[in-house]
């Protein structure tokens, strides 16, 4: 009961926080924000890591965990880098003026 009830509170509060965080976004930032939020959704890498660590000697489980980790990190690393590339273009302009 304890983990579960806590988990549902966490779920509820996390969702409410997410709804509040993005209130007014200037249209300029829609694309970078989408890409950044997308990188964060690769947080499943935590699940993949946990899976591999708990897998023990179960080879299929290790392989699936590893592949899952690869997919997640592809999402995370690629997402953050590409967002940074986009945002770098904005900041470069405002400094140079």
């Amino acid at each position: 009961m304890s983990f579960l009830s806590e988990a549902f509170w966490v779920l509820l509060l996390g969702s409410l926080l997410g709804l509040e965080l993005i209130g007014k976004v200037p249209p300029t930032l829609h694309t970078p924000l989408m890409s950044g939020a997308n990188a964060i959704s690769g947080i499943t890498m935590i699940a993949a890591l946990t899976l591999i660590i708990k897998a023990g000697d179960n080879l299929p489980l290790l392989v699936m965990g590893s592949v899952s980790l690869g997919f997640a990190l592809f999402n995370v690393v690629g997402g953050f880098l590409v967002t940074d590339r986009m945002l770098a273009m904005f900041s470069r302009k405002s400094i140079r003026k």
Partner: protein
Amino acid sequence: MNFFEILKFSIDLLAVFLLALGIKGLSKVRSAREANRLAAIAMTLAAVGVFVESLGASGIPFNSWFWIIAGSIVGTFLGAVVAKKVSMTAMPETVALFNGCGGMSSLLVALAVAIFPLSSSEEALNMDLVEKISIVISVFVGSITFTGSIVAMAKLQGWLATPAWMQSKIRHFINIGLGVVSLVSISSLLSVSDSGLLLLVISSALLGVGVTLPIGGADMPVVISLLNSYSGVAAAAAGFVVGSQLLIVAGAMVGAAGLILTQVMCNGMNRSLVSVLFGGALGATVATDSSGSGEYLNITSCSAEECALTLEAAERVVIVPGYGLAVAQAQHTLREVTRALEGSGIEVTYAIHPVAGRMPGHMNVLLAEADVPYEQLKEMDVANPEFPATDVVLVLGANDVVNPQAKNDPSSPLYGMPVLDVQEARTVFVIKRGMSAGYSGIKNDLFDLANTSMVFGDAKKVLGDLLVELKELGISGKN
């Protein structure tokens, strides 16, 4: 709680705090880049937390290290390469690809736990209903996210066209059928253990394809944003599966934030989420309804040379870039033209409609890439009052966002959509490949107005011609 557990707990709290700050900061221009780094740091911390916890518990076996490192190297390397190589115009499909892989990751975790229960940990020995439900949600949402994103990417890349039967009503029956099959397999998974898993994977994967395939290219960003929100949900479900509160809170945050962003995008395009998802291509239905009134009566077309002459005589020029400019990848040529104009003392600004480009905000990124100063980009609310004092407006590959029908004609499907009032300017040049209708399939009244001239051709080519003509007039780009 031992030391490691306390440490892991603190790391998790810090990671969530930084993630929230990151998402918040990403919605402001000034702080966006730092916020993105902050979020990246938070993710690293989250990973560190997992290692700390397991070091404190039973340690990490050598076997696990091997598979962790293998997966990390491949994923990180490929992600970095794609992020560096991809062109700015290809941003929508890149986000779709990344997103699909995130969904795939959640799907694999849930599948792995479903097939090989983590028998080493005692609490997982007897899989309870909640765990089953979270696995089912993770599999269902993960599959839809994966196939949906991949289809979205393929369509945006032009690798995949929508087959005609998918545009018809049949697709609703097919999708409902797939939904029913998914529900059946879910209920069998929940009641009778270990049956229906494969069926669920297949039916939800097909459902992802079936829902995404009929959606038109311009609506795709909304779908990607929605799928992004789904992958947050899938992550939160995976959090329930492996018992990680960090994962639950982060997944919930991204899921909710993605939903808001989707809504914001829909508002900018004057579309409801329901019509994007179930209405199919708006163009297909509207064009057949109102094709009778789609005749143009008073079209003036002119050459690049005439356009250049008018531009030379102007004092204030406003550029309205749109989807067509992004597709033609003409942002750099455009920048050369505007440099030439600025060089001879003409004031140039850009009026950016909220949904200009291939996805909302995309045009700002493209113009920034072409070195357009940020201060010259005017958002719609700022740009509109300035049109009456503008000599020349260049509309480049934009259509529906400059259609005066949205303001004047209550019977028009566009009515109520925020548009740029370019017709208020003295002269309007519309650079366009032909007279075809825009994404909405609706006739653009702007083209019929007396102060509008059409310059036919591919945006990049016309801009190139324009540059040559301007140089002949003695206006050069050296400034």
